[in-house]
């Protein structure tokens, strides 16, 4: 249960069977259960069944679910999806978190930035709105950019004004989006470089679904990163796996 989205992963027999997401609300239990039943149906299972584990900021709001911390969930999920992962970079809706793992999967260090919205999913959503671009298309909108626009301010609030000014100056939208994706990547890579990397870097969180950001991160980092098929599901998969992984 993230700040912006509630993600559910159905795991059975050591496999991810189905996934889905809904917007997080103040009363999340109902929508979460509904979605869980839809996923069970997709997997050909009866509704109401299975065991549930919850993680994320809203984890306490799901009755009947066992709880685990975000750090535990991401560590478990990353290890399940890519056992060689040594650094998890969670690009969430309201924060960027880095979790360093030992080769046996235990957590060795943790850094976070949840004070500032720059570089978070929230940042990209606000910019998408200012640009009139569908947030889901921010990754592909930058594909044809000839030259990324330079965004001078780092604060989300100031950058929003800067984007509005660039639009007024008729700067092509793809170049502005490219500039914003670069900006997010720069902030994330600065954090990665501070943490140091010993092995595979796995990207998680909704922002990792933005191909433009991922490409910019790889460019700035000078190496490839591991991108799971559904980066936004890493925490949810980890929660499910924590229950034992099989039925």
């Amino acid at each position: 249960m993230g700040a912006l989205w509630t993600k559910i992963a159905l795991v059975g027999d050591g496999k991810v069977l189905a996934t889905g997401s809904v917007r997080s609300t103040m009363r999340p239990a109902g929508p979460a259960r509904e979605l869980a039943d839809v996923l069970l149906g997709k997997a050909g299972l009866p509704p109401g069944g299975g065991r549930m584990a919850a993680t994320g900021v809203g984890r306490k709001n799901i009755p009947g679910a066992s709880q685990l911390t975000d750090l535990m969930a991401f560590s478990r999920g990353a290890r399940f999806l890519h056992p060689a992962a040594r650094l998890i970079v969670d690009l969430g809706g309201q924060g960027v978190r880095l979790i360093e793992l030992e080769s046996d999967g235990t957590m060795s260090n943790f850094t976070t930035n949840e004070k500032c919205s720059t570089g978070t999913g929230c940042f990209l959503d606000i910019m998408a709105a200012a640009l009139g671009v569908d947030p889901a298309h921010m990754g592909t909108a930058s594909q044809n950019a000839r030259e990324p626009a330079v965004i001078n301010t780092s604060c989300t609030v100031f950058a929003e004004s800067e984007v509005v000014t660039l639009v007024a100056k008729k700067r092509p939208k793809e170049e502005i989006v490219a500039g914003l994706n670069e900006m997010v990547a720069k902030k994330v890579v600065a954090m990665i470089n501070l943490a140091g990397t010993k092995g595979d870097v796995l990207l998680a969180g909704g922002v990792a679904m933005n191909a433009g950001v991922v490409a910019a991160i790889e460019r700035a980092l000078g190496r490839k990163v591991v991108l799971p098929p559904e980066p936004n599901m890493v925490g949810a998969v980890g929660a499910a796996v924590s229950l034992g992984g099989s039925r």
Partner: protein
Amino acid sequence: MITAGIDLGSTYVKGVVLVDGAVKGWGVQPTGPDHDETARAVLGSALQMAGLRLEELGYIVSTGYGRRVTSLAKETISEISANAEGTRFVARALGVRTILDIGGQDTKAIALDERLNIDNFAMNDKCAAGTGRFIEALAGVLGVGIDDMGPLSLKSQSPLRITSTCTVFARSEVVTLIAEGKPKEDIIAGIHEALAKRLATMARKVGVRREVFFDGGPARNIGMRAALEKELGVTLVVPERPQIVTATGAAVLAAARLAKAGGQ
């Protein structure tokens, strides 16, 4: 001697006309897409108030972040220098040693020595959380006019704590507080306290010595003043027109230049 100062801020453009050492006219307008045009309009209203024409101005100095984009001024000056100059002019005999100037997109803390020269300063233009933009953004969420924020917050008995630092996160936090049915005045008082805490941290970087002068648009906000006084534990010196101190400083400097050049 007739001079003018224009302060081209991020949010408002301010202009002051100075005649023989006295402020005779001023103007304030929201910053439009064309800085030069806004500057001309602001100067026009300041001149009108003073009963003067543009040709009668001996020298014009511009300041503020847009200071270089107006063709009106013969010279530009940094906001820090202009603000200190303006503070010396409006609060000459009050023993001011610290200035807190909150702008729409930046905040300055300036330490003055005994002779009122700039000793040290700190500036935040990187993060909206410590600027006027913080109040503006949250007033928007609350649907409260910026000028009503101060009076409303004074009705609060128990200010709510805004825990987020980032303006964007604080916006979501305020939305949640509204949804929970919390009284508006308590939310607003909490907003002022949150900004006061950030300003105080910045002021302490340069050292808070009395008297403390508070200017810039948000200094007009009585709730903001109260929160800052509580946080710093001092009574603030607030000028009659906090928004035009920096523009006044630019006009004073223009007069000094003109005097040096032997003009009148």
